[in-house]
């Protein structure tokens, strides 16, 4: 049987959740509250590609490249050296400029992708697109065109998106529905409170065209980036941010086997 090519994220445990990694030329959304590790996951994805001959681009809106060099260094990833080797480029720009650039043949990004043979891109973050259109339908069209322009370059995309609420679900912005629908994969990072301790949870809510793990798993941000651990057990309502312990009888019957 033909084995499908996958784009590994390099995050231990996450690739298994994704049945081997992202599908090529797809848009993969990572959503979470501040500090949950969205950008770290994105950098880990770019680093994994850069060291396996799959050059990558980080497209940042408002975050200075210096911050990425610094953060990456803390995990032992030398982004400056990767830039020197032409395996990584960190572009600082704005949604309106990159959108217009991508729409034109021979744009700056298109040339850069060709020149370095880029296969991966991190867009950090799509939250900034909200300022471009107030109308949800217009925003959706804009995002649809933007993602297609990146896919046209044969790039496998990781998009980060900030959720304003630290725990559970908050009010949805008009970008939420559009981007969750347009993305091929939707990964959610959440803080959860269990017995007065804050823990981190990761779940793959959607993966178009592929089977995936549906468990809500714990993860940690360690010395070498994100590391996905075992699923939470005996808890329900995890995504609300304040789970409850399942009744013992239910656990006996359905969970601990």
């Amino acid at each position, binding site marked *: 049987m033909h084995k499908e090519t996958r784009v590994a994220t390099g995050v231990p445990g996450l690739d298994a959740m994704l049945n081997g990694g992202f599908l090529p030329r797809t848009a993969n959304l990572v959503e979470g509250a501040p500090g949950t590790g969205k950008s770290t996951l994105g950098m880990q994805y770019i680093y994994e590609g850069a060291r396996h001959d799959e050059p990558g681009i980080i497209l940042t809106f*408002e975050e*200075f*490249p*210096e911050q990425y060099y610094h953060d990456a260094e803390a995990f032992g990833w030398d982004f400056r050296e990767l830039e020197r080797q032409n395996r990584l*480029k*960190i*572009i*600082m*720009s*704005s949604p*309106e*400029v*990159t959108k*217009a*650039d991508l*729409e*034109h043949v021979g*744009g*700056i990004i298109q040339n*850069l992708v060709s020149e370095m043979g880029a296969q991966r891109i991190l867009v950090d973050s799509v939250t900034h697109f909200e300022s471009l259109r107030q109308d949800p339908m217009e925003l959706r069209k804009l995002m649809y065109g933007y993602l297609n322009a990146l896919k046209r370059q044969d790039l496998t995309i990781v998009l980060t998106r900030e959720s304003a609420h630290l725990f559970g679900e908050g009010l949805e912005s008009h970008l939420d529905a559009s981007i969750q629908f347009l993305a091929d994969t939707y990964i959610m990072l959440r803080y959860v409170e269990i017995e007065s301790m804050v823990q981190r949870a990761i779940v793959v809510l959607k993966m178009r065209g592929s089977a995936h793990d549906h468990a809500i798993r714990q993860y940690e941000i360690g010395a070498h980036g994100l590391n996905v651990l075992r699923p939470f057990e005996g808890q329900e309502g995890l995504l609300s941010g304040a789970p409850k312990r399942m009744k013992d009888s239910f656990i006996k019957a359905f969970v601990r086997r």
Partner: protein
Amino acid sequence: MRREDLTARMAKDMDPKLFDFLTTYVDSFVKWDLLRFFHENPHTMDTAENIARYAGRAVEDVQDELQNLARHGLLEERRVDQMRVYILRSDPVLRTRLQQFIEATQDREFRRKVIYHMVRR
């Protein structure tokens, strides 16, 4: 000291390539800021308005200086839709000069010379 005397002295004291870079590109504090900004963020591509915001300067100050740097060949000015976008030229010689200039500004004496050069213009 007359301006010509100072310039002659600086030219004598300084690496000729650095002196050339200084006299070609650096004649204001805003330009100095922009050079440092593009050195630290070499793959920036954005409008004057956004670059001004990143640099923490007024757009009207930054606009002219960006155009000036583009005229002198350090930056490239491109039309993207209706926007004017600025990027650092990829010429490796130019980028090396920029790096040498920024590294030289770590030295207090060199900074003093740059400031003197700017205020005397």
